[in-house]
């Protein structure tokens, strides 16, 4: 009796996680089928390799792949490097403006990424971008100061776009430290920079690499920046091709689109396997043992102003100009810097609030986002916990499987989910739950990336001690591991919540009038050319979020565990 129940208990995580794995594989299966089937899945047809042959015969494939890789590697490097430096300054030092560096980036990713990319064109278009406009007016020169329509330009924009998520992934790791490690370094006479480079940085490496990997894959499958900035620059990436295959022709060429997506998938899976290999010797990253003491702040001393300057510099190149430009654009009927002061109106806000069915969409959106947060965090936490803390067999395979949806561009993923819920009828077709399903698939990999690093940093002793004292799996997990990892878990939850509210594009096939959400409303407006109304909508959301975050902060909810300061 006791034996069977313990067996069941041992099997339980496998059953749970296999279910999650199955639900992940299913849309991917339909997409794979779509790529080797001569018609759409569900329709009569035959097996064919013609889609793959067509992709391989694409005369521009080589150039496009090269662009894609340069763009993805470049932007993820920018995001991770900047994210690491800022996370260090915010979490470990006494530099000023740390609160601003936490709040402002969060606000920027509340904006749909298409809006963020557009706002860079408002700032940095060669002739009418505000920066270049002011520059050419002031200097009388013809040449613009910075032209965003270049490969470095679009890479930088994507890098800045990804920076907040890299920051949120890395920051919590800095508080999971045994401070003695750094203190020993400092005590033995090393400088702060040396300690950072040789001690601090290596210890948070799993989180940094995890963040890099995530940013890399997101940049691979990103569409908005390559479309809005890349195409006018003459730089095409793989997603530009996938996108046009899916939306430009009727019937949509799902077969070739998914065949192209398979290339992205292959690159992503290779990257994830490389990551898993690199952390297999995980013990070397353990930084939080059972003997942990309070984490303290590194006093920067004479470097303090430098740290402050770095934070200020970041704020001045990303969140401040971005939000200011969007704020200005939201009260313009159309964008034209010559008419900056004569073209002001609240029309966009009026249009946004008068958009039919907006209130129902808000309610649905909140239901969808909260449900997605609960599911992604639960699946992500359990997977990483059993993989790393309990060394579950096949755990790493499972994390790789759960990461598959991340490598699929949202419009491709949406089609896979659409076919799944349509043909494998579980009764959620046409309801908000289909959307929750899609968002859970899309954001579980993110939660896994958030948790992998910190999970590795916890010493095994901690669980073993709990088990030694008779704590069961559930008890150890909820009473020990979860509280210790509360920082990364809440950061992940916050990110998923904010992002799912304005994730445009994924919802189109999956919602019906009854299940319409805010993002479909914004997406419809965007596609019909009412872009500034989308900006106004985004701004309403940002203001609402700001109030919410400030209220939460006042009530004592910390987004990141700030280290306690030594007097």
């Amino acid at each position, binding site marked *: 009796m006791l034996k069977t129940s313990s067996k069941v208990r041992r099997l339980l995580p496998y059953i749970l996680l296999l279910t999650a794995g199955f639900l992940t594989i299913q849309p991917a299966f339909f997409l794979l089928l779509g790529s080797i089937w001569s018609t759409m899945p569900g329709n009569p047809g035959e097996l064919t390799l013609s889609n793959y042959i067509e992709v391989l015969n694409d005369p521009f494939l080589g150039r496009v792949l090269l662009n894609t890789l340069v763009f993805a590697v470049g932007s993820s490097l920018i995001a991770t490097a900047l994210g690491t430096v800022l996370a260090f300054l915010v979490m470990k030092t006494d530099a000023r403006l740390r609160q601003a560096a936490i709040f402002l980036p969060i606000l920027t990713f509340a904006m749909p990424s298409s809006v963020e990319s557009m706002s860079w064109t408002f700032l940095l278009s060669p002739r009418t971008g505000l920066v270049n406009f002011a520059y050419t007016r002031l200097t009388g020169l013809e040449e613009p100061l910075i032209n965003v329509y270049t490969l470095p330009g679009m890479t930088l924009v994507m890098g800045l776009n990804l920076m907040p998520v890299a920051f949120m992934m890395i920051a919590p790791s800095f508080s999971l430290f045994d401070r003695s490690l750094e203190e020993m370094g400092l005590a033995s006479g090393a400088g702060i920079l040396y300690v950072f480079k040789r001690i601090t940085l290596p210890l948070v490496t799993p989180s940094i690499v995890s963040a890099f990997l995530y940013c890399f894959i997101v940049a691979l499958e990103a569409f908005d920046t390559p479309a809005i900035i890349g195409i006018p620059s003459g730089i095409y990436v793989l997603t530009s091709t996938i996108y046009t295959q899916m939306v430009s022709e009727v019937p949509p060429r799902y077969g070739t689109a998914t065949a192209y997506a398979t290339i992205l998938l292959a690159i992503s899976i290779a990257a994830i396997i490389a990551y898993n290999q690199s952390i297999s010797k995980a013990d070397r990253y353990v930084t939080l043992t059972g003997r942990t003491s309070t984490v303290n702040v590194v006093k920067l001393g004479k470097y303090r102003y430098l740290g402050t300057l770095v934070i200020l510099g970041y704020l001045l190149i990303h969140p401040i100009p971005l939000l200011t430009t969007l704020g200005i654009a939201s009260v313009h009927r159309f964008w034209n810097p010559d008419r900056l002061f004569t073209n002001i109106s609240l029309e966009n806000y009026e249009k946004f609030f008068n958009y039919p069915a907006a209130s129902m969409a808000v309610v649905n959106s909140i239901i969808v986002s909260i449900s997605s947060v609960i599911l992604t965090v639960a699946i992500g936490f359990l997977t990483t916990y059993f993989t790393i803390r309990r060394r579950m067999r096949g755990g790493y395979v499972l994390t790789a499987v759960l990461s598959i949806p991340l490598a699929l561009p949202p419009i491709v993923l949406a*089609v896979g989910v659409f076919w799944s819920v349509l043909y494998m009828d579980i009764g959620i077709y046409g309801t908000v739950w289909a959307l929750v399903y899609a968002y859970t698939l899309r954001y579980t990999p993110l939660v896994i990336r958030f948790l992998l690093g910190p999970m590795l940093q916890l010493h095994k002793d901690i669980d073993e001690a709990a088990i030694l004292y008779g704590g069961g799996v559930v008890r150890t997990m909820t009473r020990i591991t979860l509280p210790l990892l509360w920082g990364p878990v809440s950061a992940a939850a916050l990110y998923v919540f904010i992002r799912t509210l304005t994730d445009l594009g994924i919802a189109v096939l999956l919602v019906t009038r009854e299940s319409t959400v805010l993002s479909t409303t914004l997406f419809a407006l965007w596609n019909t050319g009412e872009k500034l109304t989308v900006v106004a909508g985004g701004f309403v959301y940002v203001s609402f979020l700001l109030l919410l975050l400030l209220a939460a902060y006042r009530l004592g909810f910390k987004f990141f565990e700030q280290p306690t300061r030594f007097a």
Partner: protein
Amino acid sequence: MSGSTASRAPLLSAVAAIVVSIIAAGYATMVVQSVQADTMRVVGSVQPAIDDIKNRLNTLEKLVALYAKAAGIGSPEEAERMVKQREEMQARLEAARKESGKLVIYGSVDYTDIKSVLDAFQAKYPFIQIIYEHMRPPEVYTRITSELSANKPTADLVLVSHTTGIRLAQEKRYMGYVSPEAVSYPDIYKDRNGEWTAAVLLPIAFAYNTDKVKTPPESLDQLTDPQWAGKTIMHDVTLGTTGTQYLVSLKDIIGETKWNQFLEKLVRNVKPVLDISVSTVAEKVASGEYHVGLITNLHDVIRLKMQGAPIDYFLPSEVPLLVTFSHIAIINTTKNPNSAKLFVDFILSQEGQTIIGNTPVRFPARSNTPARFALESVLGPNIKPVIYPSDEAVAKARDWANKFKEMGFGSR
């Protein structure tokens, strides 16, 4: 004795009979006379009324003739047909009342633009509830075909871009229904079997910034002058979408030789910057970033102009106004065919089209719609729109997209 008495009796009765009959006749005459007098009196009083009715009938006849003339009815057969239609309409209304009372429409026309027509329809037929689901054209196609193959409920109607819808028609998804309103539409705007009819026009034009450009290029030659280099933006013709289909359709209209010259000079002298969105082409001309924009939505240009932006449309003399449209069609699996037909009739009617044409900025498809944005009122009565994309432009869009790429479009 008995003989004399016997002979007297019949005589007596004969006399009595005569007397009685005389009295009776006299009475009868009197009665008849009085009846006659009554009748004369009644007739006398009725006569004016009869004359009045005769007069009214005459007037009515004249009026009917006038109305018929005004309505273009030349013959009694036509009048009969109209009566029949009216009866059919009545029957349809009755039949529609017995249906589910719900119509689902998948549409690629934005909800805000179509909402006022839907509202007007619901006000007219309060027993039918409209559920309009907005999505992009390929998604309309995917939803319809996938839902049908999975035996799920799908839309009753579509209001979708023509190039998408024509594919649904080829796959036999549409129900043939020749709406009585369809007679007011040119043949190019409707299917012969009534499977679809144009409801909203989507004209494509070129745009220029009125601050930066005083007179827009008047010919293709002027348009490909090197002075526009770096100042021209165009919808991306290497994607196989609107831009590609527009350019390919232009080939047959201006002739292949001229077309080749134009493209060659365009890419050599001007090298337009490309953009993924047709709307953005207009927006970037309005902002002053570019002076000239090629292949953009006429309705975007006019909307921006109305908002006060320094933008206007133009077309070189060789290029006609190319127009595509969204059409309305009934899906043949509908369980509400009568309600669906009522909707088709309404959206194609003068009333429905006028509402569409007064929505900023949507172009109605019905000829002579008295609306603000009727093509004739915006562009003048002489406008001769040409339908695009051509068959080749649809079938070979991807091949041409690659050819344009090889010609040098898109690379900087």
